[in-house]
């Protein structure tokens, strides 16, 4: 492959539109898509916008859609595309900023709405807990927040229901909190009302694209749906709840903001729409 080159078609544009542009990139053994993007920046298009940090699949910054599939650019080998053109586009679900960079700030507002890990105040520290618990908690904790699952989730992607559903990433966050033996909050109502777990209809697209191989649907969303169903749709429990039986009841996660959250907005409106060259002005 050393004398070969790849043909890249990279989306260039911003909120006002854009188009794919073609770049020829020399092939190097073992190279990944992000290497090619860096080569294009250094040699052809210095202003090609891309997010990346670690280039080691640990930070989850370089998410994009490569030949239509949400992937990390740093982990996508070009050997997989022998003889094919490589199309690189920004994540579709989030508003575009420029080229391959999208506005993912909505995810950060969601995270803020989830009550943090809350041990009982009288829980002795350091904790005593066991490796079998850690082994179960390990999976949701692997999440690197690349937001590829949010990108592919059709509730968010096709229906834009950001105000109703927190999305797969945050079901994974809830999975961690709900399964942690030292977390003291009852999060079921929050998962149902605020998180909107009921909106997922289990197409499993999210777990297919997860670069950390988290079984998002199987191990986070379905168990959370079951917990919610047990609590709210099981007639016996419903009756107990009606009686207000508070024995052994955990405090509930705050439901504040469980109503309609505004649609994701650009955090700060651009002063120079369309990439007008404010440097030159």
């Amino acid at each position, binding site marked *: 492959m050393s004398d070969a080159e790849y043909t890249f078609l990279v989306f260039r544009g911003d909120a006002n539109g854009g188009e794919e542009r073609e770049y020829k990139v020399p092939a190097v053994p073992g190279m990944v898509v992000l290497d090619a993007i860096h080569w294009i920046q250094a040699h052809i298009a*210095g202003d090609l*916008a891309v997010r990346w940090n670690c280039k080691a699949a640990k930070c989850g910054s370089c998410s994009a859609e490569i030949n239509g599939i949400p992937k990390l650019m740093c982990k996508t080998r070009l050997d997989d595309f022998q003889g094919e053109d490589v199309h690189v586009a920004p994540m579709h679900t989030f508003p575009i900023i420029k*080229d391959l960079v999208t506005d993912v700030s909505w995810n950060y507002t969601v*995270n803020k709405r989830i009550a*943090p*890990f809350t041990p009982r105040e009288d829980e002795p520290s350091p904790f005593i807990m066991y490796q079998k618990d850690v082994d179960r908690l390990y999976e949701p904790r692997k999440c690197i927040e690349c937001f590829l699952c949010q990108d592919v989730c059709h509730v968010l992607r096709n229906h834009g229901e950001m105000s109703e559903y927190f999305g797969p990433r945050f079901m994974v966050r809830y999975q961690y909190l709900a399964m942690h033996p030292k977390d003291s909050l009852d999060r079921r109502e929050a998962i149902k009302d605020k998180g909107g777990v009921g909106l997922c209809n289990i197409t499993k697209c999210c777990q297919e694209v997860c670069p950390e191989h988290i079984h998002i649907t199987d191990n986070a969303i379905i168990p959370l749906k079951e917990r919610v169903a047990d609590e709210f749709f099981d007639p016996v429990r419903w009756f107990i709840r009606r009686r207000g039986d508070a024995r052994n009841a955990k405090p509930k996660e705050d439901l504040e903001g469980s109503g309609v959250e505004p649609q994701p907005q650009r955090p700060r409106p651009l002063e120079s729409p369309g990439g007008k060259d404010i440097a030159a002005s």
Partner: protein
Amino acid sequence: MIESYETHEHDVLIIGAGGAGLRAAIAASEAGASVGVVCKSLLGKAHTVMAEGGMAASLGNVDPADSWKMHFGDTMRGGQMINNWRMVELFAKEAPDRVFELERWGALFDRTDDGRIMQRAFGAHSYRRLAHVGDRTGLELIRTLQDKGVHSDIDVYMECTLTRLILDGERVCGAFGYWREDGRFVLFRARAIIVATGGWGRMYKVTSNSWEGTGDGIAMAYEAGAELRDTEMVQFHPTGMVWPPGVRGLLVTEGVRGEGGILKNSKDERFMLRYDPKKKDLSSRDVVARAIYREVQEGRGSEHGGAYLDISHKPADFVRHKLPSMYEQFIKLADIDITKEPMEVAPTVHYAMGGIQVEAETGASTVPGLFAAGEAAAGLHGANRLGGNSLTDLVVFGRRTGEAAAAYADRLHTHLAIDEHQIQCEKELLLRPFESGGRENAYLLHQELQDVMSTHVGIAREESDMQEGLQKVLDLQERARDIDVQGSRMFNPGWHTARDDLFMLTLAEAVVRAAILRKESRGAHFRIDYPDKDEHLGRVNFIACKTDSGMEIKPQPIPPMPSELAQVIEETNS
């Protein structure tokens, strides 16, 4: 035309949202200060996320004989005794509490059979000391601090780059820069500023550092008059990936050796038995890195110029469980199944022991109002950092610095005035690449600097070679004035790189100049022409500071250790 800028104001401004920045933010906020955190990337993406092996603290859960004294002794000896001993003392004593605190904030750690935090062996630690969760401890630390931080009263400004500290007289009073998204200028006014921007590994070609490691905060502090220290001490982690070329330098955690991995050369010899018969593969990083370097130099290197690191003698399930991300990294990026075949590894630039000189208790720099914590600060690690000591550094000194900065801001009753002239100068510097009509490409100039540093100030150093390197760095500094960038200020990485280049060029000069002056071999600093330690130089740190005639490097005597600490060194020396 005068372009306006937006202004934000806080008591304490923290630059950087890695482990140190976030821990400082939590501490300053708890102390009642209004806190702003500015980060170049999205929250949770900082270089801390890449830390793998664990965080060192003498919990004694696995080896009950461990103690703060042992941790102190190991760290001082690892740093070849030029550490700030007071920092090491505070660090070793406070480390366990910081680990327990993280656990209480939701961090997950692997457990012992009796339900306590598990600890693993690591290079040059006398006991099994690293609290860890698989090989993703950095991710765990940053996610925990991130979740704690967003529920504290802290304003986070993401994807914002600060490029200049603003002074009122000698006192720091703000920081100026731009939003990455659209290039608009922004000023943060603050009574106290904490630099927590990490290190400068990106000035080297083969490095485990993420793109952010361009030394911004350290260079800004230098420009503002702060003293830098130990800049010659650049850590080469012995085990970076070697092949394929695109992943060269990517970290292979020391945890591989901690869990039983063995280094071999092309003759299938376990060469560490020759270099350090006692600690073997788990010797300190400087020793192992030089051993691999030497094996390669003497013709016993691996296929692509490194060494073999083998853990395939351990059960496959054990390897996948203890080193999941290493397994994934090699299978995905190098087509190597580490449960079946050896990895190929070579030294990679990993960590800057040097940085901003700080006061041990508070993290205060020599500039009033300016503090530093984490990799940006210097002193804790001396001439060589032990693995696992960095994550602990972040939380121990992050907390201390956050509290001290909040207290300083609270005590300061002076009105701080913003000097528009300084802002104007920085605007001009930032905009120059659009107007220079120059011929230099920011990316390629960066690559040239990386070549220069790797060639002339690498793992093995020599006088005339470094003098040549220094001249090249100075030439690059000149050429950087002619950087030209394409496009607009909207999310323009070429433009961002242009300013990053200036930070790295400043610090590269500090690295070479101090390396030339330290005419001995100590820790990470290895001189071919001075292969031994020099007793006299073992009693000084080199300080870099800005003067009217340029950069000055001067020796600073290390204050004598109090007798009780000297005794600890004595006691723990086995």
